[in-house]
């Protein structure tokens, strides 16, 4: 193909060498400097991984050097497997093996790392050949799913898919030279396709958040203010932190675009955003690692905001279906699993069978491979879509289909509730029973009875948790900032005896 997101980056380095590419701590790394680091990394990758047909494993924390190593490997035309650096050694090793990695590279010596790459080494050439030409369907990134249930799935993405995605992202959010974009997600996360790789392909500046300080509201606010960030994409937690940091401070007038990703945005966080970001446009982004962004909804701030936010309109080139319980596509209002095909999607998993999740659909466009999103969508009268929850979160309680995510959303809408997790626990009688664990803004500000009443006014009885527990400590989170429901479920499994019937006297 004529140009990829990698060649676009190289062109910026040539034409605007001094322009800032990355901001990290108090360093600013210009395009030429980053390109030079990438060229040195590339040379080392080519030596360490001479067989271009085998993927290169990467294991590293986020840093400018890590960005340079990714770019260098891609400039060498290599496929790179980039799992979370927090993945424990045993599953990480298995993942590199399943992908067929010839070598695992890192920036510092450590377990599983075959060779250390130093993008600053003086002996390496800072120049070098232009990026290796690659075919449109050649694989570049091999990202992984979160692996909340078992080993992560490997999701290979072609250079063409990512390049098309960056073109969409840059146009939609106006990323051009001079645009500063906050990168909150870890480098292995699909959100980086926008934050990092689109920004670098279109000449903007990536303001890298140090994941170790990602829970510090003041640090995040300072990054946004000091570097005049105009685009912020992140999980609800990021926006919650920015709202907290704004207490008693001036509103953040700089950001123009806020993109909500990863989890559904609670109404309370949205309410906080009004005053903190007076000028920003809000977008609800729908997508996943397998397809990348597929729907986008711009929130009309002038009208009352209802949650869950709709997912909005399909992006250009996206095809979709909502498949009901009978296996046929809905033609009117109803509920079912959302199937999508995007110009950015993977061809299928590397390490597990893909047939279950990818395939044509008899009611779809002939020849198109649809991804079974696992999300239950509601198709409204007016044709718009909203997401009810994951099929994984759908459980049966006394014969009723209940989405634990929907119940969480209801509880989070209560003004006193800051965090909510609802988990389903198998029950021999009811099928499942729901257990809600909540953190309140002020301990004791609302009672369990009032919360039950609040739920009763908003949902069916089966969806009201059997137990509502309030806690003082923050709920456990995963490395990507989502609530760790598995850990909560495990903690309850050990304590289930306390809810057993007690004898009456």
């Amino acid at each position, binding site marked *: 193909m004529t140009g990829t997101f990698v060649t676009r980056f190289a062109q910026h380095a040539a034409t605007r060498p001094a322009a800032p590419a990355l901001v990290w701590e108090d360093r600013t790394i210009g395009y030429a400097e980053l390109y030079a680091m990438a060229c040195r990394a590339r040379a080392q990758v080519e030596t360490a991984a001479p067989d271009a047909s085998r993927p290169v494993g990467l294991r590293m924390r986020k840093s400018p050097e890590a960005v340079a190593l990714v770019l260098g490997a891609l400039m060498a035309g290599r496929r790179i497997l980039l799992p979370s650096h927090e993945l424990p050694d045993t599953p990480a090793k298995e993942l590199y093996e399943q992908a067929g990695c010839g070598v695992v590279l890192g920036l510092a010596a450590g377990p599983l790392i075959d060779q250390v790459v130093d993008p600053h080494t003086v002996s390496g050439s800072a120049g070098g050949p232009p990026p290796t030409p690659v075919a449109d369907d050649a694989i570049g990134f091999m990202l992984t799913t979160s692996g909340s249930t078992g080993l992560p799935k490997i999701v290979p993405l072609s250079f063409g898919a990512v390049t098309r995605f960056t073109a969409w992202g840059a146009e939609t959010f106006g990323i051009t030279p001079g645009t500063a974009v906050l990168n909150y997600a870890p480098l292995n996360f699909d959100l980086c396709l926008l934050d990092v790789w689109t920004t670098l392909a279109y000449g903007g500046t990536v303001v890298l958040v140090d994941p170790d300080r990602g829970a510090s509201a003041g640090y995040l606010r300072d990054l946004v203010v000091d570097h005049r960030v105009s685009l912020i994409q992140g999980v609800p937690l990021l926006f919650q932190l920015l709202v907290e940091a704004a207490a008693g401070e001036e509103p953040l007038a700089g950001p123009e675009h806020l993109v909500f990703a990863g989890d559904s945005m609670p109404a309370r966080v949205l309410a906080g955003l009004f005053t903190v970001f007076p000028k920003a446009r809000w977008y609800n982004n729908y997508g996943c690692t397998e397809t990348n962004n597929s729907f986008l909804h711009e929130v009309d701030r002038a009208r009352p905001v209802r949650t869950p936010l709709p997912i909005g309109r399909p992006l250009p080139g996206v095809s979709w279906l909502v498949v009901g319980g009978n296996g046929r596509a809905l033609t009117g209002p109803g509920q079912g699993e959302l199937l999508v095909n995007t110009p950015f999607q993977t061809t299928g998993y590397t390490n597990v069978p893909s047939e279950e999740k990818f395939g044509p659909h008899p009611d779809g466009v002939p020849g198109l491979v649809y991804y079974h999103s696992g999300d239950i969508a509601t198709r409204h009268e007016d044709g718009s879509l909203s997401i009810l929850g994951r099929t994984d979160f759908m459980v049966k309680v006394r014969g009723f289909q209940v989405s634990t995510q929907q119940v969480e959303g209801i509880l989070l809408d209560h003004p006193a509730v800051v965090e909510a997790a609802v988990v389903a626990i198998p029950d021999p009688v009811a099928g499942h029973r729901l257990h809600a664990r909540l953190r309140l803004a002020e301990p004791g500000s609302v009672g*369990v*009875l009032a919360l*039950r*009443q609040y*739920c*009763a006014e908003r949902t069916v*009885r089966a969806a009201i948790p059997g137990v509502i527990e309030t806690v003082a400590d923050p709920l456990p989170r995963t490395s990507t900032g989502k609530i760790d429901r598995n850990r909560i479920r495990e903690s309850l499994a050990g304590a289930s005896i306390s809810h057993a019937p*007690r004898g*009456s*006297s």
Partner: protein
Amino acid sequence: MSAQPHPAPPTAPAVSEDDIAAFVVERFLPGVDAAELDAEYDLLATAVIDSLGVLRIAEWLADRYRIVVPDTELTSRNFRSVGAIRSTAERAAAGEGHV
């Protein structure tokens, strides 16, 4: 209320709403203070009890007060709130239910 060492007296004992609330909270609302449970709080709509819960409360009334609620009265509506449970128990005690 203290435990009753002797068989129930021949007249129907007074069914206490506090006593019912204490049982409902202990059995179905772990962690809640019984004093917070209003006598008219809707236990059904808020899914505190279901039909199985109705049976548990009926069993408890038989144990605690020796009041047997007849099958025809074992409807969820009759157990909708602490107040409703008290009326149901009193009706049963006044009728044939009391042993």
